[in-house]
């Protein structure tokens, strides 16, 4: 009897899982099949193979300079922010965890507050204008670093606790200076949380909308997310082209996700749990 019950239970769970997968995937499938349809057919949003498959939509998108520019800008932004956040975050976490000074404590508290409190966007714009970094890559990179640093420091400080102090002492006896010790000894030991921090930061910067929306007015400097927004407001009557644009934007993300899913899921969730 129990056996029969487990089998029914398993079947129910299978059905639910398949149903859920369908609910998750339907929007993406709709986007994909309709990206090969003409303007009239794609406006019907049907999940059906195109009657007359066309690549015109893709040609339109790929001929747009701002598609390529958007991808390039997002890449530049997310990579430089990640490097900056990881390096300066690790330096800070190293000293915060090892030392018990007042400065360390207060830096840590301030950063912790930064995890919860939202940014004050209007004063930020004002400050960036006064310092002439509004509408520049450097400004956006500095802003993202400020916003993403707290989480990374928090994560790395937690992990630093598991690295025994004796290691530093041994290095110190060998006559190793603090910076060399940090670069050659501590950074390699922080590899695991640095991978997590990298995944969290890249995802956050790549997908963020509001910072460039407020801080960048020059269309040449827009990351891809703003290009999507702008493209749709221009082509909103031509869903086929919009879907082609979005497919091309999502393709690299989904490919990377496909290969690294184990690390990405673990990174984004354990990162959250530790934070």
């Amino acid at each position, binding site marked *: 009897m129990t056996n029969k019950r487990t089998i029914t239970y398993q079947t129910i769970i299978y059905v639910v*899982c398949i149903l859920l997968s369908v609910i998750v995937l339907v929007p993406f499938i709709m986007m994909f099949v309709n990206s090969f349809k003409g303007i009239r057919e794609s406006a019907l949003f049907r999940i059906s193979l195109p009657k007359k498959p066309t690549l015109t939509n893709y040609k339109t998108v790929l001929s747009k300079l701002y598609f390529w520019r958007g991808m390039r800008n997002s890449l530049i932004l997310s990579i430089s922010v990640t490097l900056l956040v990881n390096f300066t975050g690790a330096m800070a976490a190293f000293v915060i965890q090892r030392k018990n000074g007042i400065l360390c404590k207060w830096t840590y508290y301030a950063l912790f507050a930064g995890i919860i*409190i939202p940014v004050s966007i209007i*004063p930020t714009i004002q*400050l960036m204008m006064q310092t002439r970094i509004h509408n520049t890559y450097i400004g956006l990179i500095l802003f993202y670093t400020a*916003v993403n640093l707290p989480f990374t420091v928090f994560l790395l400080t937690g992990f630093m606790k598991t690295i025994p102090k004796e290691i530093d002492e041994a290095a110190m006896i060998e006559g190793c200076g603090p910076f060399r010790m940090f670069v050659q000894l501590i950074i390699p030991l922080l590899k695991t949380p640095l991978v997590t921090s990298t995944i969290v930061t890249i995802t956050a910067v790549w997908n963020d909308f509001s910072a460039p929306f407020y801080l960048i007015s020059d269309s040449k400097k827009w990351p891809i997310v703003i290009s*999507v927004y702008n493209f749709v407001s221009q082509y909103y009557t031509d869903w086929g082209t919009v879907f082609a644009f979005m497919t091309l934007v999502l393709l690299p993300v989904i490919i990377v996700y496909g290969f690294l899913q184990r690390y990405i899921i673990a990174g984004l969730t354990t990162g959250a749990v530790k934070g």
Partner: protein
Amino acid sequence: MIKRNLQTRYPNWFLGPAIFLFGFLFVIPTLTSFYYSLTDWNINRRVITFVGLKNFKELFADIKFRATLSNTLIYSFSVTFARNFLGLLFAIMLNTAFLKGRNLFRVIVFLPYIIAPVVIGYLFTAIYHPVNGILNQTLTFFGLGFLAKDWLNDPSIALFSTIMTDVWRTTGFSMVIYLAGLQAIPHEYYESSDIDGANGFKKLIHITLPLLAPSITVNVVLALIGTMKVFVMILVLTNGGPGYATEVINTYIMSMFSLGLYGSGTAANIILSILIVIIGLPVLLILKKREVEL
């Protein structure tokens, strides 16, 4: 000698870059925002003057802002509740049964979480389309045509539609956290409760939920904080409309900013910060207390 070494081993200047980066574009704007929120700073003024709590009084007197506040809270609580309830339910289901392809399922439901919300917003504008959208088409197909709605343009349902979109986007994330939490619970706990003759429901209440408390804490707090900051999803789906049926604090701040009302916009920002702290912090403390140490 050793004392001197202790000092030099961990030099304070290591904190320098982080303090500079975080201080410059986060701490300074946050601190100055308190001042700006008390001024009449706007686009037409060269000289700004201190006006006390005038901005806050005006905001709370404004029907639109009051609606904005309640929309934000409804949005935040609903998404938090739904994604945790569903996430936990699916995680428990997935954890109890031996399932082939469990990882594939995990990968699929997590997928929306890594996609830019702006893209998801546009995909759902298509899905919610009153005539051709898949949602209404499917409802009609199953003979539920009476449930078909103009999801984003009907003021009574628009907020619900934006909530469902975010639930769709984030439930997988919550589920994965719960799944990890469930897998960390030792099997012996369930085995010994079997001997005591506990049923499935009792096991859920007395073993699973208490031991899952850390995951619940993380999930609930993250969801509350994240959803109160919602911006782009609303901007893309409804832009706060129809009327101000889906206006949330961050879209309100944007409209204040575009009107050049910088002082009021900053005041609204401060209200958002306070709201997040007074809701996020107690929830964190309450849930922390309930955690059982393994």
